[in-house]
Structures are given as C-alpha cells and as structure tokens.
C-alpha cells in the first residue's frame, strides 16, 4: 500500500464518511433504490390502459369490477444503483505548483503543499467508490488516458474496496486527455447508466463539455468535480520572473514574464474559462463544484452526501 496516498487518517476518514451515510439509510432496505423503470416490485406506482398482449396477471380486477374497464397496475422496479467514478488521468493532472515553484528555484506558497491534483483526485475517487461499495451499489471506476478509458468493475460490496484502492494506487497520469473523446468511448462500452462522478481539471485542449453532454444524453446523472491546483488559480503562488512555460501534455512552449500585469490578464482569462464551465453545468443541471487541492477532500464528500440527501 502506498502510505502517502492511503494513509491511515484517510482510510479512517472514508470509513467514517461511509458510516455517516449509512446511518441515514437505516430505514430502507439495503441494496434497494428506486428506479425510473416500472417493474415487478411490490410497490405500486401507477395505472395504465390495457393493451393486447399485456400480462393478464397485472390487471386490476377490482377496478374492472367497478368501472368495467381494463387497467394494468404498474409497480416500481427495484434495481441496484450503478455508480461511475470517472477519473481524469492525463499528465496535466499530475502537475502541481510546488514542483513548478521548486523548478525555478522558489519555495512555493504554503498552500501548495497539498500533494497535487492527481493525488487529490484519486483520494476523492476512492472516497466516492468506498461509500458506494459500502452502500452495496455497483461501482465502476474509469481512468481516462488520452481518449481511452481504463476501467475496473463492476464492483460490489466492501470486500472489493482493497481492489479498488489498488487500482487507483497503480494509476499513472499519462497521455493527453481529450476528455470528450474519452467519455464517448466510455459510453460505447458501458451499458449501465447511473450516477456518474467526473473528476477532472478540465484542462483539455479539445474541450470537454461535449463529453459531458453526451454522458448526460445517455442517461447518466453527471456530477462534475473540477479539481485545480491553487497555483493554477493564482500563478503568483508558484511562478515568478521571466519564464518559458512548457505545456506538460503538448510540450508547446510560451515565453511569459510573470508580473502583476500578466498575472492580471491570466486571472481574467481563467475566470472567463471557469465561468464558462460553471454556467454550462448550471444550464444542464449538472452539479458542479470547483475544488482546489487545499480544500479538505472530506468536506467535498460531505458536500455531496448532503446534496444527495444522505445527510441532513
């Protein structure tokens, strides 16, 4: 086990989070979730007119006795919830401001000492996965390299937690992510839509919003967790002086002198870019949260649990 990634405190925290979420669900049956599909459970859902070929066992004879019309009783179908945790594993996710600051001889602001985006993203993914496993949900993990997705699943039950952690631990951030392409390729091979957490820095030259749109069209309940390094929000935390900036994914270079004026422009551009993503999500009813790596990941998880009604 990589103790820097899964240290004891982290494991303790996700265990706590899963307990917190479980306690709220005591009144319900384990493994049961309401499904939009009509099915054969015992819970009545609706009526509809009889059409030829319907199962006669589903007719409501009491209604027929009263109204002399044939109605079919519809029941809720109960099924397992599928939770997809899609993790951006491109090289841009592996960038962190502290390393960049040290590369140019600086020490970096204290807020940068958080271990980087990829570590943060994996911990968040592990937390979502663990909670889902604890809830007896079906869990799919996906790591997006380039336009391919490295999948693990379906997993069910807490005994798969160790395997999930191993999978995440062995992940390496490599390749340039075309997030849209990766998400589409995931859709092609995945037949079980469900709750979907996309964890990414959204720094994808090809754009990433199309992929989200496709995911949503395919019936996924998409949540976007936008993970950024503090130094990406405020470059002054890590960068200074006259620099030649090299893109970690494309290798392209830009010459920039870091000073308040350039940083001012950068911040303006950053704001426009981030607002575009946020407003896209708002329009599509995609829950969106921006998490810089200095935000404690358990706060993030609690935010989602609360959002999904698992917590008051």
């Amino acid at each position, binding site marked *: 086990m990589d103790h820097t990634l899964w240290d004891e405190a982290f494991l303790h925290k996700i265990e706590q989070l899963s307990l917190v979420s479980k306690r709220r669900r005591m009144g319900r049956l384990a493994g049961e979730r309401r499904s939009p599909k009509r099915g054969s459970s015992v819970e009545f859902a609706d009526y509809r007119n009889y059409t030829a070929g319907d199962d006669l066992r589903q007719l409501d004879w009491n209604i027929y006795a009263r109204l002399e019309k044939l109605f079919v009783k519809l029941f809720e179908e109960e099924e397992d919830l599928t939770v997809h945790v899609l993790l951006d594993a491109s090289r841009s996710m592996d960038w962190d401001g502290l390393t960049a600051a040290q590369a140019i001889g600086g020490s970096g602001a204290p807020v940068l000492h958080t271990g980087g985006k990829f570590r943060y993203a994996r911990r968040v993914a592990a937390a979502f996965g663990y909670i889902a496993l604890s809830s007896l949900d079906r869990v799919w993990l996906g790591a997006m390299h380039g336009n391919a997705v490295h999948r693990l699943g379906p997993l069910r039950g807490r005994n798969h937690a160790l395997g999930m952690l191993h999978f995440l631990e062995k992940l390496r951030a490599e390749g340039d992510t075309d997030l849209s392409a990766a998400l589409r390729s995931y859709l092609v091979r995945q037949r079980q839509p469900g709750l979907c957490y996309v964890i990414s820095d959204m720094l994808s030259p090809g754009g990433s919003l199309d992929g989200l749109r496709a995911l949503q069209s395919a019936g996924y309940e998409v949540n976007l967790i936008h993970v950024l390094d503090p130094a990406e929000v405020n470059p002054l935390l890590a960068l200074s002086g006259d620099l030649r900036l090299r*893109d970690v994914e494309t290798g392209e270079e830009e010459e920039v002198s870091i000073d308040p004026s350039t940083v001012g422009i950068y911040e303006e*551009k950053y704001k426009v870019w981030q607002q575009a993503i946020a407003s896209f999500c708002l329009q599509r009813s995609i829950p969106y949260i921006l998490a810089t790596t200095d935000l404690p990941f358990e706060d993030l998880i609690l935010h989602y649990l609360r959002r999904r009604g698992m917590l008051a």
Partner: protein
Amino acid sequence: MGALNPLALLLLALAIPIIVLYMLRLRRREVVVSSRMLWTRILQDKQANAPWQRLQRNLLLVLQLILLALLVFALARPFVEVATAARGNIIVLLDSSASMQATDVPPNRFAAAKQQISDIIDSMGAGDRITLISVASSSRVLANAAEDKAALHAALSNATVSNGSTNMADGLRLAASVARQAQDSTVVIVSDGAVGDLSKLPPVQATVRYIPVGGSNGSDNNQAITALAVRDGPNGPEALVSIANFASINASGILTVSVDGQLWASKQLQLAPGQRSSVTVDQLPRTAQIVTARIVTKDNLAADDIAYALHTNAKPSKALLISDGNLFIEKSMSLLPNIQLDKVKPADFHSADGYDLVIYDSGVPVFPANINTSLLIFNPAPSITPPNPNGEAEAKAAAAFNVKSRLDFPQVGAVQVNDPIMRYVDLSTVQISTARKMLLPDWAKPLVLDRDGNPLIFAGNLEGRRIGVFTFDLHNSTLPLLVAYPVLVSNLVGYLTASQNAGADLPPSLNPGEPISVPLQPDANRVTLTRPDGSSVDLPFGGSQAVYADTDASGVYSVQQFGSNGALGQPTLYSVNLFDEQESNIKPQPTLSIAGQPASAASGATSEREFWPLIITVALLLAIVEWWIYFRGRRLPRLGRSTPAA
C-alpha cells in the same frame, strides 16, 4: 564644458559586460505548466503593449546603464567654465572699514563683500591660490596663498568689520609685495570705494580688479557727526557738534547731547543734501566728564551717529609768578580759564609750596633747589641753577643753564609744528632782538630753534617735573604782540600743568584702531583699562608708557593706574570716535583709480568648476530607485491598463 580626465570615459566599455550579464540573466528559466491554454491568450494580449512592455522589462538594465554612465562621467571629472574674478595668484583685499557697515545692501555691505569673495573662492580652479587681506586702519592677512577652499572659507568667515577708517594704500602696498612673489598675480579689491586717494601709490605689478560693493538708489543716505568738541566757555562748558548730511536727499532727525549718561539737550535737525551744520550746546554742567552726542536719523550707517567727547573738570591750577612786574605774562595768564595767578617779588619769594606752576620772569636769579613743581622760565639768569643738581645728568643740565654768551637777532629756524605745544602757533613773523645762548638739555625737546640750531624755546620732563624755557625776554621780542602768543602760552601752560590735568596733552579724540598710549606715573605698578562695553584688561607696560591697541570700538576708554598704595589719582579717560568724512560719505564708488590707472571691474577670466559631487548624488539616488524597483518586483504603474473585469 570639458573633462579633466577624459580617459575615464573609456570605462563606458563596462556597459558591455553589464548588457551581456543582463542577457544571460534574461535567458528564461523553463518551467512546466499544466496547460498552455490560459497563457496563450495572455501573450496575445500583451502584444498590444509591446514597446512599453519591452521598456518596462528592461527598465533595470536602462537604470543600470544610466548609473554606469553617471559614474564614469563623474570619474572623468567634468567641469563647466564659469566666469571668475581672477586666475592664478589672487590677492583679495577686503575693505573692513566702518563704511562697510552700511546697510544699503542687506544685511550690510561687508556681508555682501564676503559673499563676493566667497564666490571667488568657489570659482577657484586647480592651481589657483588666494591671499586674503582684511583692510581697515591696519591690514591683516587672513589667509596666505591658500588653495584649500574650506580653509579660505573659514578664514573669510573669521573676518570682521571694524569701526575704523580704510587705509587702502597700506593694504595695496602689502598686496603688491605678495604679488611680486608670483608671475600671474591679480589683486582684487572688494570695497565700496571709500578708500581715499590712491593716486600717489607706486604702480602695483599685477592686474588690479575692483569689485564695487553697495546698493544703487539712495545708498548714500548717511548723516554723521563729523566732530564733537567740548571747551570751557564763560557760562560753563560748551559742546560743539558738527553734523553733515552726506545723502543726496533731505534728512531730518534729532540730535541729543548727553552728559555723563544723562540726557541734557536735544535738537531737531533739518539738513539739505550735502549740508553741514554746527550746533553748539552751552551751559553744560561744570562737572561734566563725558559728553555724548547722538543723531537719530534713518540712515544706512550707524557707526558715525554717535560721538564722545571728554571734558576735564580740573580745579584751577595755582601759578606763582616771580617777577618785578611783567604785563605780558600777567595778561596772558589771566586769559587762561584754569589758572589762578599769584605774584611775588623776587625778594619776597621763599617757598613754592601749594603751587602747581612757578614762573620765573626774565632775570630772576634765585633758583631754590627744593622747588618740586613745574617751572616756566623766561630768559634764565646766568646764576640760575636747575632743581636738585645732584648727579651727572643734573650737572650737565646746570651747564646748559650757565651758558653766558648772547645771541643777537636770532632768526627763527626750525619749529616743531607737530608738537602739541606748537599747535596753531605761527612764529614766522616773530622778531627777537637778543636771546641767551644755551645748550639743549638732554631731557628737553626743542620747540623753536634759530637758524644755527640754538634753542629759543624748549620744554621737557625732568624726573616727573615739566619745565618750559624761553631763552629770551618777552620785552626783547615781538612775540607778545603776535596772535600766536596767547595760544603758545595756553598750550605751554597746559603742558606744564598736565600732571594735574592728566590727559590734557593727548589728542582730543582717537580714531578707532589708533593705539592709546598712557604715560605712566613713576610708581605705577599696575595699569587697568576699562573698555566702553565695561570689560577690563590689565595693560602690559614697560618703560614710561603703556600701550593699548584694541580700540576698534568707539566710546570712552578709562585707564586707572595703581601704585603699591592703591589707586594713583583719578582714572584717565580717552575717547575714540569715527570722525572720518571719507568713511561717512558712503556713496559707493563705481570705479577706482590706483596710481592713475583705473582698476578694471569685470574680468574675462574663466575657471573650471567641477560638478562631480552633483553627479554622484544623482547616481546615488538612481541606485536607490533601482533597488526599490527591484525590491518591489518591478511593480511600476502600467500605463493604459484597464482594471480587471469584475
């Protein structure tokens, strides 16, 4: 404009390593970022401000290059040509006389003159030397051939203005002797031009420049007391005040006369331009000692607005005439206000006790040896013997009196016109039929000699006693009929009775700076002088007189002699006044003529004035700015930058 060390400009080549280092420094460090996406557009935005951005980026380089240029420039020792009074060996004569106290140029002319000289010192070039001489009644060398500007400034600041008159001729002679020591000498006179007549001076072997000091309009506004005398009149002492208006405008003011510090009289004055006026204030108290006259006007020079005069309130001297009757002597003595004359027949004479002066008429033979007073002897009898004939000198003196030969019709020859006794005495028309031929005693000074050098009138001081001798009978000459006779008798009696009326034979007033010489009483062992401001000094003395020279302040000086038994008599008073019309006439003279040659006012000479300290100061400021910019991370306000959109 030029540079004393132009080779230093080669150091500008140091700019090359600076630029190289800067280019090395500008090689960008490479750093990996997560995405170029957001940065790309930034560079596109910055293109619009490229020139300014490039300048801003290179601001430190530009500052460093300017800094280097300034330092190299300073090392090259640049200079500008400034006009200067002179080059080379400069002798500056600073007029320190009373007229330089005039306030027509604030604060006064002397300060203005010092400023002029200060400018000359500042404009000194390399190799220039300045000799600084302060000229008042005497000349004083403040700095001798100095090249150090600081030392010259210090010497200049030590110069003080005096109350005395200008002896510029003396100063010029001193300057000429300094000028002879070098080839390229220039004498610079900084003065208001009230320096008197310099035409009789030998030409100065140097260029002479004159820098006039003084204002232009109304700067000659001065009223002065030109003389103050106090004499005894029939109704008590009278003060005679002479006032002159040297201004070219009407002047009004108030004249006040104080007696011993008490205001006695005041008069309104109205003076036309150039007018002189005499004011007599009579019926002063007989006890008056110090009479002070002061004029209160709005003029530019205060030093000559006050004058002091002394009045001796002597008790009448008692004189004894031993004579069978001499109308000339009796008449002339009765005219003297302070002489109380008694007469005695030679046969009745037995003692001179109680008398200050004993007068022996012609042919009186008796000469008692115990007489201890002043003597006035007319035509001494052959048998007369001088007092106390004990000792070798006395024997010689006695021999002088015993010459029996006779001079017939001696012609008056040498007359000691400079002696106070002979003041205002004109003996050119005197005729003498017969006189005694006598030898001049070594204690006596001749007053009148005949053409063969035989004394006709002489006087002297023999062991504290004063003796005056006429070698002829008044009846044998035309002297009693001349105007000069009463004056001569008055002067002579004044001299003979001076031991009672100390100071009577001194000049009535001293000029500032003129030394006071005090005749010592025989047993004086300490002499104390009190200055007008009340401070006292003990005078060093040797021989028969004590001298005090620091009489620059006008006013009344008091000298007290002390013997072993305390004070000897009353203090002697001396008055010091600026009675110098040349100083009181403060109109600035635009030109000056020396030995017939006009002194040039301007000068074409230039001097190289270096200004590297200024450059170094600017460079230091620049270094501070550069450090500040670097420290602040080059947070210069950027022109034309819009505020970030909210």
